[in-house]
């Protein structure tokens, strides 16, 4: 009984803190994004360059603490995962909640290929990307018929089936025991064992993913994807093949998440099914929602914040998943568009003060399903 009261009180307090924190953060990010889009391109580039340099030289800045360093690598892993999920949710507007499945499949492909067959990490990682791309295609098929919440549940089902296979197919996956002893990558005989090497590998993956996201978004395909997200019927009537685009988003996102999974397997040298549960998918989803669905910079911030914050608040880490649940609710209530809302970046300040008002703008997903 005492426990019941203690937990309830703590979580009640967490709600209060979340409300205040999100309100303040919304204001801060609104101010920053408006300011940022107001300054000229040259200065923007300088700011970006400074950030870029900091990230590139981070291993030398954070050398003192292996713990901080490991956390940074995890943060970058989540950045890639969140960015890839953003391609499905933010670009194509399909609510996928099975992203951990791609991550898991990729990790297991690398684990099995390197441990059982001694295949080089790099080839295994590419194989992981190919295999998860195929799974992305399979998962993309339901989107032809299902929308919104129905699709979400189907993707949860898919991810659960994958997890159950990992647990039960003991002949291959060793079941709950997992697969230990996954080797580090090698380049020309050099074993890249140090965290610095891992940092740069995952950083390359991050840069590649940002690059692909950006180029995709600013191409005709990106335009088509956003059109499908905004109004699928109108998009089809304008000649946009929504089927192909949605599957493309799933395939691409799957491949990237799968390669990240492969990297993760090599990084922690051990995989087991517990790393790829439903909660993992929810966590990645929270990152996307917190940062701002569809916004590349927002999703990066969301991923970094949600990896670092629980580490910083280790003492209360048992509460972290409960707080993620609350975070989703509070975000939907006071800031559904996420921290970085796209309007601000475009310089259109139509709804900058949404934090204070009770007018809900929504994520503008599946808008068509709302029209009668």
């Amino acid at each position: 009984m005492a426990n019941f009261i203690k937990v309830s009180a703590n979580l009640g307090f967490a709600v209060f803190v979340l409300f205040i924190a999100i309100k303040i953060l919304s204001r801060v990010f609104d101010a920053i994004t408006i300011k940022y889009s107001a300054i000229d391109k040259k200065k923007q580039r300088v700011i970006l360059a400074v950030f870029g340099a900091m990230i590139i030289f981070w291993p030398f800045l954070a050398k003192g603490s292996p713990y901080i360093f490991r956390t940074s690598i995890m943060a970058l892993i989540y950045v890639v995962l969140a960015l890839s999920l953003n391609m499905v949710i933010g670009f194509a507007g399909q609510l996928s909640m099975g992203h951990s499945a791609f991550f898991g499949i990729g990790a297991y492909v690398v684990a099995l290929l390197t441990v059982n067959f001694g295949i080089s990490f790099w080839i295994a990682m590419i194989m992981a990307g190919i295999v998860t791309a195929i799974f992305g295609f399979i998962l993309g098929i339901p989107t032809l018929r299902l929308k919104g919440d129905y699709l979400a549940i189907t993707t949860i089902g898919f991810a659960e089936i994958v997890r159950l296979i990992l647990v039960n197919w003991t002949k291959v996956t060793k079941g709950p025991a997992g697969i230990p002893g996954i080797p580090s990558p090698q380049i020309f005989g050099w074993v890249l064992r140090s965290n610095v090497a891992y940092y740069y590998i995952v950083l390359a993956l991050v840069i590649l993913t940002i690059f692909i996201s950006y180029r995709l978004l600013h191409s005709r395909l990106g335009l088509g994807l956003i059109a499908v997200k905004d109004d699928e019927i109108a998009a089809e009537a304008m000649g946009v093949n929504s089927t192909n685009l949605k599957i493309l988003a799933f395939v691409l996102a799957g491949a990237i998440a799968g390669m990240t999974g492969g990297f993760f397997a090599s990084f922690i040298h051990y995989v087991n099914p517990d790393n790829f549960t439903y909660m993992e998918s929810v966590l990645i989803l929270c990152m996307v929602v917190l940062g701002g669905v569809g916004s590349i910079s927002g999703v990066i911030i969301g991923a970094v914040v949600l990896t670092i914050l629980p580490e910083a608040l280790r003492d209360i880490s048992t509460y972290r998943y409960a707080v993620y649940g609350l975070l989703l609710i509070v975000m939907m209530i006071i800031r559904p568009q996420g921290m970085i809302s796209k309007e601000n970046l475009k310089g259109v300040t139509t709804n900058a003060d949404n934090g204070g008002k009770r007018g809900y703008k929504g994520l503008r997903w599946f808008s068509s399903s709302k029209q009668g």
Partner: protein
Amino acid sequence: MFLDQLSNGLALGSIYALTAIGFTMVYGIIRLINFVHGDIYMMGAFFALTALTVLGLPIVVSFIIGMIGSVVVGLMIAKFAYKPVFEAPRINLFLCAIGAAIFLENYAMLVWGPQTQSFPDIIQNQSYNFLGLKFTTLQLIILGTAVVLMVILTYIVKYTKMGRAMRCTSQDVDAAKLMGINTNHVIYFTFAIGSSLGAAAGILVGMYYKAVYPMMGFTSGLKAFVAAVIGGIGSIPGAMIGGIIMGIAETLGAAYISSGYRDAIAFIILIFILLVRPSGILGNSAKEKV
């Protein structure tokens, strides 16, 4: 062997049916897949277990406490997590439901611990032969409770004023409002009924498997959703039929294919049904107007 599995499946199926009704009712009223429903079911089981073991209350009283506790939880979620986003796109509401579900699962873990707790043996099991099937006392209790609750529910929906208001609201919220129905009351009432049935199912399943744990709602919730979809979401008789089908399919699948994949069977059925006939057996599909 087959007949044993059939009676197992019937008992389990009636529990799924009870849970599925909650899904179907809430969906009928606000078009929300109430993802938290499975966790309300889990909360019900924990409340009843606590009342039974910690407070030492008799089973019937504990059962009722479990239901009341779940109703409170369900109403709080409807009020604080759903009400503020009723007007937003439906998908935001769904994310709130996901958030609430995760919250409850972890809340239960924090309060009662992540490990499985055993539900005490309170019923002396005997076997009965009935229509050629073998039932245990517990199975008969489960079936009986489920039938009684479903009869009560059918009476409420069909013959009371609130039931009529519920049916109106599920057809057209705006028209119902214009006709002077307080749709907010209807929505909360629906959540209350759905939660109480969910809790009953949770307690029954706790008794059946003699186990209660925080994540029990996740898979059962999904399975009940599948049952609701099989029967055509929004249709109460459909949910009952869907629940029975699910229960039997699952026990037979677990017995003849592999028990490790018991849950996977439900998900495969889910994906298959959603792709082939998303409107279910008794439902009719509505296409978007252009």
